[in-house]
């Protein structure tokens, strides 16, 4: 058993004390509370935490409870985990800027905010592809924990296209295994025209309700222009706006009113956030963009406004 202090561990990870407490309360980090803000965790749980967040154990002052072995079984068995290497397949080859240019300098791993999570970092991901461990890479959750933020790419001296590469890795995963609700959102958007599958009638009712609020807020002539042919600007939304915070749309409506803009919101296929980008699925992305284009043609608008 190991004794930790929430504050020390949080400082070490650069997170807030509350975050560590949330992990403990939520069961992510099973721990037993002791006196004086200290917690007791098992060797195995601690080893797992270190692996997940890339913590260097030797840099932490740890207190072991008497009688517990310092080396855990978990740590020794890592050594047996020597991977087979194979050739690189054509699936991750299409771009020479993915991997072949990499000089393994590690700059990307240094810049990535989630290096160490799951024992991974961008350089390792590239190496796995180059050394033919691509099945492991595709099966790994790490490329989905990456936010495609591009910090890694920005520092790469060889201009390796790490973000495009990781997106490609996502795209190679069996669609049934895409994490969370991303794939569902993509299918929903292709079928119903928005990521959350909000029906057309509900959407129109919501817009009318918001329109009433606008009139109460000092825009007496306001009407939401739904499907107005010939409007200059076609506005798209993030389905979260319609679902979780419709009032936020009013900011835009006030700006349009002030600017005297001729605008419209389509009653269908108004989703402007393309999750195909995140699932690495170009075909789906194209289908979703196609729906927007169809709207533009149907209503004869001249400008398409994307929500973010």
């Amino acid at each position, binding site marked *: 058993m190991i004794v930790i202090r929430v504050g020390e561990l949080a400082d070490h*990870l*650069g*997170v*807030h004390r*509350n*975050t560590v407490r*949330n*992990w403990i309360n939520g069961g*992510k980090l099973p721990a037993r509370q002791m006196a004086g803000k200290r917690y007791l965790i098992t060797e195995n749980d601690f080893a797992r935490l270190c692996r997940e*967040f890339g913590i260097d154990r030797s840099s932490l002052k740890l207190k072991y409870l008497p009688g517990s072995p310092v080396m855990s079984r978990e740590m020794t068995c890592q050594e047996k985990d020597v991977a087979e290497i194979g050739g690189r397949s054509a699936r991750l080859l299409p771009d020479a800027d993915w991997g072949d240019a990499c000089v393994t300098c590690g700059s990307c791993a240094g810049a990535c*905010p*989630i290096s160490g*999570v799951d024992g991974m970092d961008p350089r390792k991901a590239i190496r796995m592809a180059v050394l033919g461990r691509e099945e492991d890479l595709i099966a790994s*959750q790490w490329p*989905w*924990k*990456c*936010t*495609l*933020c*591009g*910090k890694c*790419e*920005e520092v790469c001296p060889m201009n390796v296209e790490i*973000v495009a590469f990781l997106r490609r890795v996502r795209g190679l995963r069996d669609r049934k295994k895409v*994490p*969370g*609700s*991303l794939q569902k*959102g993509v299918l929903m958007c292709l079928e119903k025209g928005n990521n959350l599958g909000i029906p057309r009638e509900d959407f129109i009712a919501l817009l009318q309700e918001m329109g009433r609020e606008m009139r109460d*807020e*000092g825009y007496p002539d306001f009407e939401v222009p739904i499907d107005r042919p010939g409007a200059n600007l076609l506005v798209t939304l*993030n389905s*979260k706006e319609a679902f979780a915070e419709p009032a*936020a749309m*009013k*900011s*835009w409506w*006030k*700006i349009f009113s*002030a*600017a005297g803009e001729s605008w419209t919101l389509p009653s269908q296929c108004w989703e402007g*956030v393309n*999750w195909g*980008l*995140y*699932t690495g699925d170009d075909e789906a992305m*194209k289908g979703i*963009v*196609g729906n927007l*284009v169809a709207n*533009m*043609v149907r209503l004869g608008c*001249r*400008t*398409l*406004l*994307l*929500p*973010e």
Partner: protein
Amino acid sequence: MSRWFQEEAKHFKVISVIDLLVDYLQKGRIRVDSSRHPELTTYHDPCNYGRNSLKAFGQGYFEEPRWIVRQCAPQFVDMFPDREGSYCCGAGGGIWATPFKEERVYHGRLKARQLKQSRARWVITSCHNCRDQIVSSLCKEYDLDLGVKYLWELVADSLVTGPAVS
């Protein structure tokens, strides 16, 4: 879009919310009052408007949003690093729709530290993911004492013309 729908795309143009706001302000189609946001304000560069747009389209939106923010909130401060070196809020890449909450919050620790060090009272951003991450995760998990607004929310709240009542 122009890659897939060349023919149709000839008939219209695609713009971002930042393009539109800059256009309105520059042409004087809307006017803003800079006295309503006197507190120190900073801007968070969303990865997709900044760094990733720079890479994909050869143009990143770095100065335009800052210009808009300054029109509304003249007391402006930048975080460090910013622009193409900005830290991600932690919620990009569709991670909101995945179960990886702990990783999302962990990733955001660097942004939270930057925000705290900026001493700003407001942070403005132009991305829904970023805004939600800062409001509902970073502010709570890292005890940040600041407000978050969308860029267009800031502009709407600063509008001079508009409702007859104001």
